[in-house]
C-alpha cells in the first residue's frame, strides 16, 4: 500500500495542530491500516511535543535502535507517553476522549492471538482499560502496565527514567553499547513486525520501508527519531516519494544543482498548494534565479554547474558569431512592434452619458433627448501590456540550446526597446520538481543577457509551467498580458497523471498535450494571450497545433525570425 502525499500532509498537519507549533518537524507519523492519517495518534504525537521535552524523548527512542527488542521498547514507550499526554491534553480538548475511545474500540475488536508478545498483550490491555473493560493479564504484566501508565504529574525526565528502569529490570534492556548489535544500514528500521494482530497480509510492500506497522496501522519513521541521526549521504532520489527525509535531501540536491530558491519554504508550500493540483498533484516547485547556493557542493551538482557555465559560454559565442544578423533582427522586430503599438494602442474616446462634456453635442441632449453628450477615455496605452517569455529547457532541446537562447534574447531585447515590461523564465522538470529559472524580471531592463544562462535539463511538464507563468502574470497590474512560449510542444515528465481511481497515465504524448492545451485554454479564459514560437521538428507540428491553435509560428531560419515573430506578436497586439 502506498501512503499518498495528501495523507502524509494530513498527518503532519494534525501533529502541528496538536503541538501548536508549525516549526516542529515531526519525524514520526501514524496511519491506519488503510493508509489514512490516524486522528488520535497524530494528536498524541503533537501533544507529546507540546507538553514534554521532545529532544529528550527522541534521544530515548534513538537509544533503542539496533537493539534486539527495538519494537517492544518503541511500542511500550509510546504506550506510556500516550497515557501521560492524553491525560494532560484532554483538559484542553474535550473531543480527545472520544477519539481515544474510538481507537480503543478498534483495538478491542481485533481477534486476540493465542500467544501474543508482551507489547501486544500490554497495549491491548491498556486500551481495554481505557474502555472500562476487564483486561485479563498475569500479575507481572499487570504490574508492568500499571507502572507504564504514567500520570499527568510526571515530567519528561521522570517518565524516561521509569521507562528505562522498567525495560532494564523486565526486558533485559542494556543502555548504550551492551546488547546492541550493529546492523547494516539497509536493514535498520524497516519492516519490523509490530502488533501482529494488527497487520494485514504478509507485511508491507518494499516501497514502505521506513513505514512500519504501528499499533493497528502504520507508523512512518521518517528519520529514525530526530535530526541528529540524519545521514544524507545514502539518500537516493528514487526514495523521494516515500519519506520526508529524502524529500528534504532531494530539495537540497535541486537547490545545489540549479540555484537557491527565490521563495522561502513557507511561500513555496503556499505556491505548491495553489498550483500543484489536479494533473500536477504531488509535483514540487523550485523558483530560482540560478544563483548558486552558499553550501559546498559535491557529486553531480558540481558536474551540473560546470556544464551550465560551459553552455552559457557557447550560447554567448553563438550570438556573437552572428552579431550583425542578430542586431538587424532586433531592429526590425523593434520597429515592427513599435509601429503596431502606435497605431493600435492609442487611447480611444467613446461617447457616453457621463464623463467629459463635449460642447458641440449639447444640442443633441436638448432636442433629441440623447444623453450621450460626454466622452469617456478607454485606456489602451502601451504601458498596459506586459509580456512573459517562457523557454522550454528540457533535454529534448539539447541540440538547439544556442538557437533557443538567442531567440529568447532577440524577443526580450526588442520588447524591452519598445518599453514593454518583460519577464523571462526557463522551465524543466526533474525528479518531480518543476524548476522555474527566472532570468530577468519586469524592471530589470539591462539584464536581457542573463537569458544566455539558458541550459537544458530533465523533462518538461509544460502544463504546470504554463499554469505557473499564468498565475504569475495574473498578479501583474497590466490590463493586457501576453505569454510567449518557446517550445517544441513535446510535454514529457516522469510523474504520472491519475486519470481514474488508481489508474495512472504517463505525462507524455496525448495526455501531456491535452493537459498543456487545457492550461493554454485556461490562460486565454483569463484574458492572457498565449503564443508559441515553435522550435521543434516537423513531426511535432500537429501537437503544437493542438495546444496553441493558430497562435504559433515556426522559425525555419533565423534570418526570417524578426518577420515571423513580429507578425505573430503584432497579431496579438492588434487583438488586445
Amino acid at each position, binding site marked *: 500500500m502506498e501512503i499518498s502525499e495528501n495523507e502524509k*500532509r494530513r498527518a503532519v498537519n494534525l501533529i502541528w*495542530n496538536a503541538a501548536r507549533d508549525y516549526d516542529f518537524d515531526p519525524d514520526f507519523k501514524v496511519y491506519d491500516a488503510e493508509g489514512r492519517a490516524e486522528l488520535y495518534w497524530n494528536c498524541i504525537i503533537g501533544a507529546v511535543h507540546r507538553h514534554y521535552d521532545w529532544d529528550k524523548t527522541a534521544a530515548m527512542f534513538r537509544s533503542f535502535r539496533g537493539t534486539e527488542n527495538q519494537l517492544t521498547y518503541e511500542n511500550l514507550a509510546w504506550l506510556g507517553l500516550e497515557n501521560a499526554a492524553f491525560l494532560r491534553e484532554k483538559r484542553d480538548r474535550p473531543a480527545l476522549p472520544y477519539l481515544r475511545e474510538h481507537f480503543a474500540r478498534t483495538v478491542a475488536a481485533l481477534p486476540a492471538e493465542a500467544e501474543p508478545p508482551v507489547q501486544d498483550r500490554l497495549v491491548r490491555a491498556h486500551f481495554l482499560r481505557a474502555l472500562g473493560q476487564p483486561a485479563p493479564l498475569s500479575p507481572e504484566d499487570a504490574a508492568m502496565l500499571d507502572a507504564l501508565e504514567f500520570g499527568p504529574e510526571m515530567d519528561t525526565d521522570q517518565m524516561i527514567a521509569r521507562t528505562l528502569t522498567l525495560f532494564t529490570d523486565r526486558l533485559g534492556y542494556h543502555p548504550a553499547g551492551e546488547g546492541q548489535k550493529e546492523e547494516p544500514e539497509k536493514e535498520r528500521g524497516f519492516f519490523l513486525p509490530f502488533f501482529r494482530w494488527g497487520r494485514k497480509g504478509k507485511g508491507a510492500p518494499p516501497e514502505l520501508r521506513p513505514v512500519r506497522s504501528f499499533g493497528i496501522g502504520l507508523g512512518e519513521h521518517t528519520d529514525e527519531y530526530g535530526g541528529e541521526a540524519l545521514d544524507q549521504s545514502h539518500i537516493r532520489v528514487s526514495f523521494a516519494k516515500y519519506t520526508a527525509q529524502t524529500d528534504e535531501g532531494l530539495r537540497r540536491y535541486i537547490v545545489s544543482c540549479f540555484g537557491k530558491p527565490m521563495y522561502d519554504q513557507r*511561500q513555496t508550500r503556499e505556491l505548491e498548494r495553489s498550483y500543484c493540483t489536479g494533473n500536477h498533484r504531488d509535483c514540487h516547485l523550485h523558483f530560482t534565479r540560478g544563483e548558486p547556493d552558499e553550501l559546498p557542493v559535491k557529486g553531480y551538482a558540481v558536474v551540473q554547474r560546470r556544464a551550465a557555465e560551459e553552455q552559457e559560454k557557447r550560447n554567448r559565442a553563438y550570438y556573437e558569431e552572428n552579431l550583425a544578423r542578430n542586431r538587424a533582427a532586433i531592429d526590425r522586430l523593434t520597429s515592427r512592434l513599435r509601429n503596431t503599438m502606435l497605431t493600435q494602442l492609442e487611447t480611444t474616446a467613446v461617447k457616453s452619458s457621463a464623463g467629459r462634456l463635449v460642447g458641440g453635442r449639447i444640442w443633441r441632449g436638448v432636442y433629441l433627448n440623447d444623453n450621450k453628450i460626454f466622452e469617456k477615455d478607454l485606456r489602451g496605452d502601451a504601458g498596459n501590456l506586459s509580456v512573459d517569455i517562457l523557454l522550454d529547457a528540457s533535454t529534448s532541446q539539447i541540440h538547439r540550446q544556442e538557437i533557443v537562447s538567442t531567440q529568447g534574447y532577440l524577443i526580450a531585447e526588442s520588447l524591452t526597446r519598445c518599453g514593454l515590461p518583460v519577464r523571462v523564465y526557463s522551465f524543466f522538470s526533474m525528479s518531480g520538481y518543476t524548476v522555474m529559472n527566472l532570468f530577468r524580471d519586469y524592471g530589470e531592463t539591462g539584464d536581457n543577457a542573463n537569458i544566455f544562462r539558458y541550459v537544458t535539463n530533465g523533462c518538461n511538464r509544460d502544463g504546470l509551467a504554463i499554469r505557473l507563468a499564468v498565475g504569475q502574470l495574473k498578479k501583474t497590474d497590466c490590463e493586457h498580458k501576453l505569454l510567449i512560449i518557446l517550445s517544441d510542444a513535446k510535454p514529457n515528465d516522469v510523474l504520472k497523471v491519475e486519470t481514474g481511481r488508481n489508474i495512472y497515465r504517463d505525462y507524455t504524448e496525448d495526455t501531456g498535450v491535452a493537459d498543456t492545451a487545457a492550461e493554454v485554454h485556461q490562460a486565454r479564459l483569463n484574458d492572457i494571450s498565449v503564443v508559441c514560437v515553435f522550435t521543434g521538428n516537423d513531426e511535432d507540428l500537429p501537437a503544437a497545433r493542438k495546444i496553441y491553435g493558430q497562435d504559433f509560428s515556426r522559425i525555419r531560419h533565423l534570418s526570417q525570425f524578426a518577420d515571423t515573430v513580429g507578425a505573430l506578436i503584432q497579431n496579438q497586439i492588434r487583438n488586445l
Partner: protein
Amino acid sequence: MLDFLRSEGVSPAILSEIEHYRNFYSVGDAVKSRVPSPSYDYYGREVWEQAAAALLAGENLLLVGPKATGKNVLAEGLAAAFGRPEWDISFYINTDAASLIGTDTFENGRVTLRRGPITRCAEEGGFGILDEINMAKNESLAVLHATLDFRRIIDVPGYDRISLSDATRFIATMNYGYAGTREINEALASRFMVINMPIISEDNLKKLLTRQFPTLKPEYADQFAGLFQDIRKKCDSAEISTKALDLRGLLAAIRLMRGGLPAAQALQMGIVNKCFEEFERQLVADLITVRLTGDLTTAQLFAD
C-alpha cells in the same frame, strides 16, 4: 456605544472628547439613517484609544491587517461612537476619480455634477470608509490627495471647490499580511495615521462569542475560540488558504447551532465548505474533529 467603550477601559479623557465632538457637530436629518448601530463590538482598548485619538485630532486612519482582524467592525464602531453618518466605498481595480468624486451628467436639459460618495461624505461631515483601498490603482487615488491632507478640499474642474466639513474623516482599510496583496504608495500612506490591526486574541474572541451568544456554555466558547486560533495557525503556516479563516462564518455557524442544527453540520456550512479544494476541506474538518465531537446538540452547547 460609549458605555461599551467605558467598559472596555478606554481612557475617560478620550471619552469626554468624543462626547464633546458628538455634541458639537450635528447630523442632518437626511443622513441620520446613515449613522450605524453596529451588531458587533470591536474588542481592544489600545486600538480604540489610538483610533479615537487620531480622529479627534482631525487625522484620517488607515487600518492595516490580515483577514478577520476586525478592520470593518472597528471602522463602523468608530462612526457609531462619534455619531457620524457613514459612507462605505469599496475600492476595486477600475475605481477612478469619477466614481469617487462625481461625474458630469445631463439632467432636465442641464449639465450637472452627479456627486460621488466622497463628495457626499465631505459635504455631510460623514465618516468615509475606504474599504480595501489597496485594490485601486495608485494613480486613480491621486485625486484624493488634496482631500486627505491638510487642504481638506475637493476640486472638481468646472465647478466650485468643495471644502470638507470639519466633522469629515476618512478611515481606509487594507488587507495585508498574506501573499498576493498590494501596497499603497508613500504619497497616499503619508496622508493617514496607520494602525496595524492586531490579530484577535483568544480571550477577546471568547468575549465576543459570549456577548453574541450569552447562553453559550463557557467550555464551548473556549473550544470555538480555540478552533479559530487553530485555523489561523494553519493559515499562517501556509498549509491552507484563508478561506476557512472566517469569523463571520463561525458566528453564523454558532447561530445555526442555537437554532437547533447539530454542531458538525453547522460548522460544515459555516467554515469547512468555504474551502473549495478537497484536501483543504479535509484539513479543516480534521481540526474540527479533534476539537468537537460530531454529535454535539443545542442542549449540550447552550445553557438554556
